[in-house]
């Protein structure tokens, strides 16, 4: 079985981020790391594709030929990676990115495509379903468990109340939520082996896409302004005068969380 995991390489969230004043987009120069939320996708894929002849391929679109984040996934055990890096991709919106990823994923001819629910730098959360739509594949979101049964997958799909059981034919796009599996630490051997695992470098032209469809040229969105978010209010302090519990319950009811 071939599983593709889409991996986003993002600026290290520990380092203070910066916006490009010209485009109002996140400055992505400098070293990028694998988005933490993709740890779960990679782990899930490795667990599903652990058999003889199974293979996990990573697919990533990133500026500057960046592979640092990919190496993390390769060190965990993925066999190879496809990296799309092209100056024409700067300023891509989610749909533009989805076009690129869909074209790259198709080259790997996977049985299953695993993605994170959303990235931790962009948070649009729209990319996986766009990729599925472009590829004409079914998509199942918020998976907390996945099992393979012949040519179908069975997914436990997280809901507010519990989970739904969804069965769908492969190939399919599945998104996993953070925390559903325990991502493995890459072993020392894995880290050393990652260096020599193949990374295929592709450009927009290699994928047969036109530069006008992607990047800022093809983007349907423009960030016109960025403003600071409102400082958080100080909250309400409840002094317990015997009725503390009721007042907390009343507060939560008012928020409609209980």
């Amino acid at each position, binding site marked *: 079985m071939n599983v593709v995991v889409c991996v986003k390489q993002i600026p290290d969230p520990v380092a203070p981020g910066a916006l490009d004043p010209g485009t109002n987009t996140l400055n992505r120069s400098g070293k990028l790391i694998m988005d933490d939320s993709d740890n779960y996708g990679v782990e899930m894929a490795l667990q599903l594709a652990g058999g003889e002849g199974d293979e996990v391929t990573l697919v990533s679109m990133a500026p500057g030929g960046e592979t640092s984040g990919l190496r993390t996934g390769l060190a965990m055990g993925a066999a190879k990676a496809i990296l799309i890096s092209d100056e024409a991709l700067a300023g891509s919106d989610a749909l533009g990115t989805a076009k690129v990823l869909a074209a790259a994923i198709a080259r790997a001819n996977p049985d299953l495509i695993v993605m994170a629910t959303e990235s931790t730098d962009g948070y649009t959360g729209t990319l996986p379903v766009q990729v599925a739509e472009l590829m004409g594949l079914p998509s199942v979101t918020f998976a907390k468990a996945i099992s393979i049964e012949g040519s179908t997958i069975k997914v436990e799909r997280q809901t507010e109340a519990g989970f739904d059981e969804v069965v769908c034919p492969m190939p399919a796009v599945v998104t996993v939520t953070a925390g559903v599996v325990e991502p493995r630490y890459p072993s*020392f051997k*894995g880290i050393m082996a990652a260096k020599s695992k193949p990374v295929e470098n592709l450009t927009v032209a290699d994928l047969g896409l036109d530069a006008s469809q992607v990047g800022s040229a093809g983007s349907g969105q423009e960030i016109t302004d960025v403003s600071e978010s409102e400082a958080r209010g100080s909250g309400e302090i409840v002094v317990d005068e015997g009725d503390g519990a009721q007042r907390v319950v009343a507060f939560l009811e008012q928020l409609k969380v209980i």
Partner: protein
Amino acid sequence: MFEWSEEQLAIRDTVRRFVEEEIKPIVDELEHGDTPPYEVIRKLYATFGLDAMARDSFKRQLERKQSGATGSARPEGGGDAALTLIPIIELCHYCPGIVTALGVSTGLAGGTIMKGGTPAQMERWGLDLLTMDKIGAWAITEPDSGSDALGGMKSTAKRDGDEYILNGNKTFITNGPYADTIVFYAKLDDGSETPLRQRQVLTFILDKGMPGLEQSKPFRKMGLHSSPTGELFLTDVRAGRDRLLGESEGTPGGSEGRESAKGNFTTERAGVAAMSLGLIEECLKLSVAYAKDRLLWERPIAEFQLIQLKLARMEVARLNVENLVFRHIEMSSKGKSLTLAEASAMKLYSAQAASDVAMEAVQLFGGNGYMSEFRVEQLARDAKVFQIYAGTDEIQVTHIARDLLGR
């Protein structure tokens, strides 16, 4: 080498994550709860595949020994010392005691058996020590001889038919209370008139539970609580020739046993430099954060020049120790080794720097520095031992001088 490579950084990051997630939450338990460090070390080994790597390395060393080759068993180019040193550095951000327990078991006990043992001894004891399946101790120091361990040693090995009868006390023995396998040094008592100081040193491999062998409870110490240290008492312990390292006394009156002990000097001293680096990095990080955070006279103490001087000195120490560690890594990757003077100088400087930096960190933190919660007090207590074990500061000085003056 002036910085870590991409691959080394990946190793550092993954070990750092393990230390933050698995060690940090249990430091208190390891330091003050009498929890031995071995389970978490085994977890570290399993997590990063270090046990599998140890088995591979064991196989190579065994094949080399069986083929009769001598010298280093390292693969071409000398291997990557960084693979060993990076975990040491990272662990010392929180817990130098773990490193001591680990290093003595695999490096000193396991290493001695792998170097001097016969293939049968390597298989019987070496493999389990390298993988951390068993815990090893390396016992040379005695109550009446530390710095003068080889000369002043009083433990004896007396021939009795095909066997030896061992007697003596060892003290300050890392892992002593829990060790499954003990590398034990003793003077050969062949009934001759040879004065004790000049007698041949023999090395034996002992198992926990042998009749006449007593392993004490852990000592209470100033620091390094995560590393159990104890005493060994031997009363007429019978050891067959199969327990004599190399299954041979060596050349009559020869110095094999002494060389076996000294053979560990360079690795041990490089290890202490790496430990110092980790400890210094942590003290510096904590100190910079505290200096920016702590307000006095309505401004951060980082603005006071006397505080800045402390931070600057810490940075100088960090840079120097890092350079020494990098140099050692680069040299061993080229298959070159440090001279005795260099290895001793590296250990002397690094150990002193670690102690100084940690004590200054305590000072910078003021009263909080004296409180456990702020962690620098533990690091300061732990750092002190770097100047004592693996050869005291004073002994390093004598080794540097001996090497320089003997040229």
